């Protein structure tokens, strides 16, 4: 049942020009960043000989760091219509009157959008992989980057989904999601080095950066998983509560 709903979600995404244009735009931007960084790498290459810094650090880490920012702009556009659009066009009734639980509806929608985001992440990761044709890639670091981006996307999508359940207007959902993501992103910019503060711990950025640096800590992974689970649970709760209040 979850698969059915996810399948419909993915299908509708690919039937809309929005998804295709987003894929294209993201790819163009990421390719430009990738190429610009490659050029820098070629300039630096003579000086790097003998050090432990390689193409992975110069190009791949940087690429994924920027991918996160691009995704922050893009994910709200994709998640905004998840529930709000269905509510607006009254198609939510179809799901509500079918023998399907709220959990199945939310998980279906979440997995549908995640499938799309993973396609996007997959296409981005093809660029670093192309380096394998002529050179070497630190596969450990690369894997950490891919994992980091995947977890980041999972948490972005869950927050977007939740905000989409709050409003009937997709644009408001998009603006709200973007604002919330940005706030969570800059949460640890607060002065001082308070690296142990709660705010710093809650920041989406901090955990991502440590993964990008190749530091695989289960703490970071658990943070993202908890983040996603929380907002999925909140979405289910919200959808269920809608029947009561309205």
């Amino acid at each position, binding site marked *: *049942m979850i698969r*059915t*709903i996810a399948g*419909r979600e993915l*299908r*509708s995404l690919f*039937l*809309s020009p929005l998804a295709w244009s987003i894929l294209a735009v993201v790819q163009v931007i990421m390719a430009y960043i990738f190429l610009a960084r490659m050029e820098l790498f070629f300039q630096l290459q003579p000086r790097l000989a003998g050090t432990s810094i390689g193409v992975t650090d110069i190009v791949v880490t940087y690429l994924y760091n920027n991918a996160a920012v691009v995704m922050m702009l893009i994910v709200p556009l994709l998640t905004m219509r998840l529930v709000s659009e269905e509510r607006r*066009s*009254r*198609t*939510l*009734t*179809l*799901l*509500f*009157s*079918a*023998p*399907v*639980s709220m959990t199945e509806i939310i998980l279906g929608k979440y997995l549908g959008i995640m499938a799309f985001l993973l396609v996007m992440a997959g296409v981005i990761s093809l660029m670093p992989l192309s380096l394998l044709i002529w050179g070497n890639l630190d596969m450990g670091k690369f894997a950490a980057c891919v994992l980091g981006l995947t977890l980041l996307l999972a948490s972005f999508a869950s927050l977007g989904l939740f905000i989409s359940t709050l409003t009937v207007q997709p644009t408001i959902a998009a603006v709200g999601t973007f604002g919330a993501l940005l706030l969570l992103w800059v949460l640890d910019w607060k002065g001082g080095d308070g690296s142990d503060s709660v705010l710093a711990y809650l920041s989406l950025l901090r955990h991502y950066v440590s993964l990008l640096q190749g530091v695989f800590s289960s703490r970071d992974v658990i943070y993202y998983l908890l983040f996603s689970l929380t907002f999925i649970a909140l979405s289910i709760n919200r959808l269920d509560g809608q*029947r*009561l209040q*309205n």
Partner: protein
Amino acid sequence: MERDTLVSVEHLSRDYGGMRAVDDVSFELVRGEILGFLGPNGAGKTTTMQIISGNLAPTAGRVTINGIDILDSPKAAKAHIGYLPEQPPLYRELTVDEYLMYCARLNRIPAADRQAALTAAKQRCGLIEVGRRLIDHLSKGFRQRVGIAQAIIHAPAVVILDEPTVGLDPIQIREIRGLIRELGRDHSVILSTHILPEVQSLCNRVQIINKGVMVLNDTIEGLRQRMQASSMVVALRRAPAIDQLRAVNGVLDVEPLGDGRFRMHYKPEDDPAETLAAQAVQHDWGLHELTPERMSLEEIFVDITRTEQPPDAAEEAA
């Protein structure tokens, strides 16, 4: 034959903020019945239907579908319901086939039976030739049919249709009515509508709701009784004194309309037309017109929804 109760609604109430949209509504629906659900706009019809279909939770009261409580086990109860809301829930970017296949999956029709269910639903709703067209490109009538197909694809015991014929042309309306009549044979149908002749031609039972309160719940036969004449207009060339007319057996009241015309009120079970005609001949009143006045469903509807005050308004006035 055993009466097989499919829908049972007990003391249903629903508040929106401080406003009570549905107030203590109870009714039952048995298999093979088509229930016409009438009421002015904003009377609580749609709210009631949304609650029965599980889209809205009631503030108080209980709804059971086929014996299953919709709040306790929503999944099991919803499997027996097909619901067409006022605005059909269609994904316009899908084709008719894709959409109905999705509905079949949502309603947990086993994979092996899906194609058959799809074909059967399309056949019943006359959608065979548009299966591959995008829903967005269909006319309103066809979209409405897709909406009905969606509601019946899993052969539910109860089909709930909220104003299914609004905005359709007369031929489409006839087709949809035919379809509803057919559905009424092996499903139970709850039909909300504004079109009163539709109710008279389709339904076995009529329910009128006004300002959230159920004001009438009767079979179509019972309604016919109510519709029977309780007054008639007579025209006499040489009219006698009004008291003489009042004295005719069974007449309750006589209302002069001028020009020798009178409206005579009587009890439905005690029709004085025959006596009156006999007396007119006997006394040479020159009877040249005698028309029984029938109340139409429309008049009953207007009558009920105008005069009935919701209880709280009456309290406030007191």
